[in-house]
């Protein structure tokens, strides 16, 4: 077997593994309230992404069943963890199913978006 191509590939691979720190698309890893969860109440929404996000270009919207928009505060990031986007819920949530719609711009300007539901139990 000719080993030269293997050596070349291995060398290039080595470069890859020592690549400098990088940023990626911000994917939602965890949420509070949790995705699909049933909770007693929710005074804020916290979204933990796989990467740091830019709060000025990221956002969260909350709608109740029937599409009524729930007022939220300004989104901000956790000072201790820039991958956590936080928004205060502007009012006490009545029982029902709520939809969180989010969009995030990671620090390298890549855009991601998504939505999920949670339920406030009676």
């Amino acid at each position, binding site marked *: 077997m*000719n080993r030269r191509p293997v050596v070349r*590939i291995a060398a290039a691979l080595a*470069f890859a593994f020592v690549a400098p720190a*990088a940023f*990626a*698309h911000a994917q939602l890893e965890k949420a509070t309230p949790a*995705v699909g969860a049933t909770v007693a109440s929710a005074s804020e929404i916290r979204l933990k992404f796989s990467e740091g996000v830019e709060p000025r270009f990221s956002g969260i919207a909350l709608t109740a069943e029937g599409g009524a928009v729930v007022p939220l505060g300004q989104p901000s990031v956790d000072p201790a963890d820039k991958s956590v986007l936080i928004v205060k819920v502007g009012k006490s949530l009545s029982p029902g199913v709520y939809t969180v719609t989010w969009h995030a711009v990671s620090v*390298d*300007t890549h855009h991601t978006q998504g939505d999920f539901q949670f339920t406030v139990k009676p």
Partner: protein
Amino acid sequence: MLFLTWRSVARAIFSVAAALWLSPAFAHAVCGDRIFPATLGIDDPGVGDELALPTLTSQPQGSDGTREFDATFSWTKTILPGLGLSFSDGGAWLRPGGYGWQALDTELKYNFMCLAQHEFMASAGFDVSWGRTGTAAQYSPFNTYSPILDVGKGFGDLPVSLNILRPLAITAEISEAIPGQSWTDGSQNPTTLNWGFTVQYSLPYYNSHIGQISSDFLRRLIPVTEFAFSTPIANVPSGSQITTGTIQPGVIYEGDTWQLAVEALIPINSASGRNVGAVAELHFFLDDIFPNSLGKPISKWGQP
């Protein structure tokens, strides 16, 4: 002479890529909420700065008893947003047959559609497998030209009542491989239709849309099954009009800037091989690793 030139170009590109830390990467194909992973049997529907290095393939044993192992790479560079040029090449070890460098393969590909709300993405490409760039058993004296269409559809737009199906996605590819020479040494060179599709269930999508997955490992997995086929359609030698291909169940692990995919290669019939092969591929997303330099389009012309 031309043979030497193309091989030199291919190796130069590969070496420069490594030297400049164009480290392996395969770009994300993002449309709406959906991120289509890079797949192995057929291409994904996106275009981006990416590198697959290496792709290691233990082919199913050939119907004539031949064994083959391939070690290849593929690098895609975006020229404009949505328009990329890829270079693929690598080595092949045949037993019997020995080692040979495969033909250089290039593809110009354009992502012409993304319907974000419906997670539908489509790209068109034109691939050339360059003749006289391979060696030994991989040598071909002529180019092969392949117009290609890739599409992907995520099912995130299904109603919430079908939540469990929303992480599903399918992708498909069809291409016609047209040899630049109809006959070689008295043998016909058939035109083939290469076609296939994938069915994938994204646990990352499940985790962010349906229900939280507590395991960091599990929420990065995408179980996938690929179906890749080849059907001779013109200039076919007598007795060779048979579709060959593989069914490829496997799994993809999504890192933040890379992914690892492993799949089995199950021949669909005896003409496709005996036994089960395997393929593994490491992808790097250059657009994430080098977002402000090598991972972005050469020109932003046409960017919305």
